[in-house]
């Protein structure tokens, strides 16, 4: 059982600007699973995601995280990425002057080098990219534009999915990648995530909406509130949340 555990979060506490935002998160993700994390605004979902990716502004004050059995916090962000952790940012960062193609190829090659694979030249890379572009329904004009610069909200989200498709991680954390997408884009994104699903990888979907979960059936749904996972359940929990909101859970949490 433990050998296909990909990620194990134990009693994780984290602060930002001196404020404790994560107050004891426990979470186990196995290979082949999709977990959804829902919860009110400001409850710590992005903080959890960013702590896992290695954001410098967050300080881990207690607890530990094992990724493939190794101490995740012992690795700098780039090493986590090379080992297969990928975070699709809630707010992707724009980089002027650097084309998407150059950025993507640099990332792919950093990971390939780490794996002892040969780095890809611009032409080979472009060939490999064409197929991925088709999957997310993009034309190559996005490749010659600077990274996320001047992209619409939805385009930025799609660009995160393109990176996901190109980098093919073991653990994908998607932080509200479904927010701000139009109905068609949501479908493509969901289909892409679904297509990338394999027995040896896993996905954590942070979302506010039930809709994406109708495309990607999650194995587990968690509710993160006040910096803790206060409830976990099956897909039906998401539907219940959609109807009832979070207030009933807050009461439950304070009572408990």
């Amino acid at each position, binding site marked *: 059982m433990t050998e296909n555990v990909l990620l194990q979060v134990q009693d994780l506490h984290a602060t930002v600007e001196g404020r404790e935002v994560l107050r004891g998160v426990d979470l186990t993700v196995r290979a082949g699973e999709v977990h959804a994390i829902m919860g009110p605004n400001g409850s710590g979902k992005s903080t959890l995601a960013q702590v896992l*990716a*290695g*954001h*410098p502004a967050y300080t881990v004050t207690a607890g530990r995280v094992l990724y493939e059995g190794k101490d995740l916090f012992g690795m*700098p*962000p*780039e090493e*986590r*990425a*090379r080992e297969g952790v*990928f*975070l699709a*940012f809630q707010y*992707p*960062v724009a*980089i*002027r*002057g*650097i084309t998407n193609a*150059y*950025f993507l190829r*640099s*990332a792919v090659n*950093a*990971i390939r080098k*780490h794996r002892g694979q040969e780095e890809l030249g*611009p032409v080979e890379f472009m060939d490999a990219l064409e197929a991925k572009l088709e999957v997310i329904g993009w034309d190559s004009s996005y490749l010659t534009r*600077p990274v996320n610069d001047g992209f619409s909200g939805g385009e930025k989200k799609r660009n995160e999915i393109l*990176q996901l498709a190109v*980098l093919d991680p073991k653990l994908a954390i998607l932080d509200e990648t479904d927010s701000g997408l139009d109905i068609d884009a949501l479908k493509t994104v969901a289909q892409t995530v679904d297509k990338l699903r394999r027995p040896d990888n896993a996905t954590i979907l942070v979302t506010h909406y039930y809709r994406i979960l109708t495309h990607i059936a999650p194995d587990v749904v968690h509710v993160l509130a006040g910096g803790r996972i206060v409830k976990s359940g099956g897909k039906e929990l998401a539907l219940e949340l959609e109807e009832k909101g979070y207030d009933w859970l807050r009461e439950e949490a304070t009572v408990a």
Partner: protein
Amino acid sequence: MSDVASGTERYLADFRAFAHNGAAVAPAWLKEIRESAIARFAELGFPTTKQEEWRFTSVAAIAETRFTHPASPIPQLGPRAIEPFLIGGGPRVVIVDGHYAAELSTASSTPKGVRVSSLAAALRTDGDSALARGHLTRYARWQESPFAALNTAFLVDGAFVHVPADATLEQPLEILYLATGRERTVSHPRTLVVVERGARAAIVETFAGVAEGGPYWTNAVSEVVVGQGAHVELYRVQRQGPESFQIATTQSRQERDSFLGVHVLTLGAGLARHDINAVLDGAGAELILNGLYLLNGAQHADHHTVIDHAQPRCASHEFFNGVVGERAHGVFNGRIIVRPGAQRTDSKQTNNNLLLSTEARADSQPQLEIYADDVKCTHGSTVGPIDPMQLYYLRSRGLSPETARGILTYGFGAEILGRMRHPEVRAQMDRLVRERLGEGRA
């Protein structure tokens, strides 16, 4: 103060020698202007940091150095000496220590009607001289700038380019200003470019030095006239040695519906000051000022731009990026004037500076003077180290901090390079930027 004053005296004495020297042959009208210009220089003297326009840039080192105006003919240089600075196989004019070097220039291979020659030769040729008289010294403001005054006083040679109406200069024309650094030379190259109605041209000005040796000073002025509906791309690379000085003015005047792109790459000189004065003097004209300075060591580079919207419906878009490392100091001052009646002006200015060390410094000053009401003017500037969020974003994709920093730094340059339209010119500029920043191949 007294050193600065005596510096001024030296140039007055040099001028007397120059004016009585055979090298100063010129039409009477020009001699007259030279006299007025030296008189003006005597009044203005070298600027001090007490003057607003020179607040961040001290030229004391120039005033105090005994530069010479060599009377001897320019040294013979082989083609090898200029090779590293050439871009393509197009026509070229090579100016060595301020004088035309015929054996290195290939100006003859220009299309019919297009005149590319030395300015000195143009002034000796009746037709060209008449044309030059209509433009030369009329735009660059020697009455206001002591350095433009000094250049005008010693005006003797440089490049002369005339593209007649509706003609096209297919390949970029290269003007290479080379300093030999012998005898602490000061040179005052003067260039006049006149592109007539509906014509098209691309010009690359390169400032460089052959010897890394002693200090030299290049005090350059280029005047560029863009006729009605004409289209001009002007590229300028300054890659002089770190011991050298460079003061320069690029002065443009645009007529109706014309387009001018000015692309600047400043890499060299220990002390550099570049004034770009662009006058949009015809309705519907468009200007792009696109510049990049990459500084390290103890370099100081000051870019002062003035965009003068004198007529309605003109657009100016200005982008200057700076990457400043070690103990270097970058200065950007961007003044935009919108004259009364210049309605529907569309003007945008940005200056972003990346500081690569704690000792590096950048000063950025926008100055808007708007005297019309129906205008769109925006400006913005930033000065700071690498953005930690950008760094983290790249690292989260597997890039090492060093690679990520390299990419982000190169991005500052790439943004500017991306606006350069001529592929060979852009490739050369890109190579220079990569060499300087130590970035790998894309």
